[in-house]
């Protein structure tokens, strides 16, 4: 399988990691903010598509700009819905770990060879319902250049 590096997406992602953490602190966002309110936490998983033969095609080619991501991050913060967020370094820097029945550790370099997509980052938002979560997902820059998967967080 041909794996080529997809533009600037991961680079921008890594650049924004510190930005995201910083803005969370700046805006006073915390996990306990919404306790007692009827709302659900959703994780928005920002998925990028790996390039090559037979790979899915993103809605738009290219990569989101740092400005787009920062503006989005700021909107989430100002709306008071952001619980946490993180952006990941390039999937090419990934390391895989598996443990077999004998308890032996198997460590391999790189992304999982079979996967067609990679996780570029995530946002955890606290909103009243799925429609609100979908609205936020649709505004995420990642939705234009890949897809955004919306998953409710399980509560235990």
């Amino acid at each position, binding site marked *: 399988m041909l794996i080529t590096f997809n533009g600037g997406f991961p680079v921008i992602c890594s650049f924004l990691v510190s930005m995201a953490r910083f803005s969370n602190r700046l805006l006073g966002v915390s996990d306990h903010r919404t306790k*007692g*309110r*009827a709302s*659900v936490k959703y994780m928005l998983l920002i998925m990028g598509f790996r390039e090559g033969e037979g790979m899915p095609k993103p809605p738009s080619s290219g990569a989101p700009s740092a400005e787009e991501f920062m503006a989005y991050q700021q909107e989430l913060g100002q709306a008071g819905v952001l619980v946490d967020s993180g952006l990941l370094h390039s999937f090419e820097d990934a390391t895989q770990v598996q443990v077999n029945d004998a308890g032996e550790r198997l460590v391999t370099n790189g992304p999982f060879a079979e996967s067609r997509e990679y996780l570029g980052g995530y946002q955890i938002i606290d909103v*009243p*319902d*799925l*429609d609100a979560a*979908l609205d936020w997902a649709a505004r995420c820059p990642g939705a234009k250049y890949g897809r955004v998967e*919306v998953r*409710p967080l*399980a*509560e235990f």
Partner: protein
Amino acid sequence: MGPAGEPIEAVFREERGRLLALLAARFGDLDLAEEVTAEALLAAVETWPRSGVPREPLAWLATTARRKAIDRIRRDATLATKLATLHADADPARRAEPVPEHEHIPDDRLQLMFACCHPALDLDTQTGLTLRYLAGLSTAEIAQAFLVPPATMAQRLTRGKRKIQQSRIPFRVPGPDELEGRLGLVLHVVYLIFTEGYAATGHHDLVRCDLVDEAIRLARILHRLMPGEPRVTGLLALMLLTDARRPARVDGHGIAVSLEDQDRGLWDTSMIDEGARLTTHALRHHPPNSWSVQAAIAAVHDEAPSAQETDWRQVRLLYDELFALTPTPVVALNRAIAISWHEGPQAGLDHLEALAGEPGLTRQHHWHAARGHTLARLGRHTAAAKAYRRASELAQTPAEIAYLSSRAEKNTTPG
């Protein structure tokens, strides 16, 4: 509603759907809503014969079901977190209040319909949930109607319910900016239920015929709750005008009868009248929508005393309009048939041949049947027989296969 002495069962069908919708919207949990609805109805069966049917049966049932839901939530620790959404009802003082006699009970079925037809659910699940919770069909009935094993349908409904609850799909009518698309999904599901039942009329299968009635019933609910929405009016009109022909669609031997050969005396005139009236209402809105235009086409057919006396020019113009709104191969096929009657069989055939490259059409019997019919009218019987034979191979229902085979036969016989 429900004067004393009326059988309790008569009240329940309509009330059950409304109760379920009310409770689902309130608690966001279809399982809970279903359970307490059943309990409230049971309580009514036990109480009403002794105490008489209450003046406001629905208010009585709603209050009873709500109390049962709150009791259940209090008993069940895993449901306790939901109390957050129930501030008012959880108040013990309020719970002790007597059942209000004239409480206004909102009709939340529209909200429930939008939740069941949410785009986060797949189409099969949307259809299943709508039939289960809005039409009130049992899981076994739905499974039978869609020809899947009951276990498969049960699993589909369970997954759908779980997704609604865990993803918190809202029980809400979408706002104006979203309504256009979301209503489209609801109407699509209702029409799918209709066509699923309608296509199977030849099976003489009562359950599947029920799907037609259920779809019309669902459209009536939608129409009552959204009286000014022309797409809903158009869909209801279309289904009434189509179903009005049901008694004439299949002959005594179970063979399908084409529109031009149907005994129009068997058509249901009251359904045609109602459908035509609704079509007029729907078409007052501009621009027209595809449901209203389809209803208008059905109305032109239904009001014609015979196939020959049909206003084919009107039908053709309406198909032009429909094709402009929804340029699909199926609409193009129907437009070609209309042209064959308006301009003549050769013009119709030319339009049909132009669609020969549409695999979606050539894999189904309708295109081949239309070609066979047009070729027969042109006197090209050998080619017609061949087209009819291909159509009969592709047809699904026994009634249609019988009809198309007989047409193939007729065109093979010399003279």
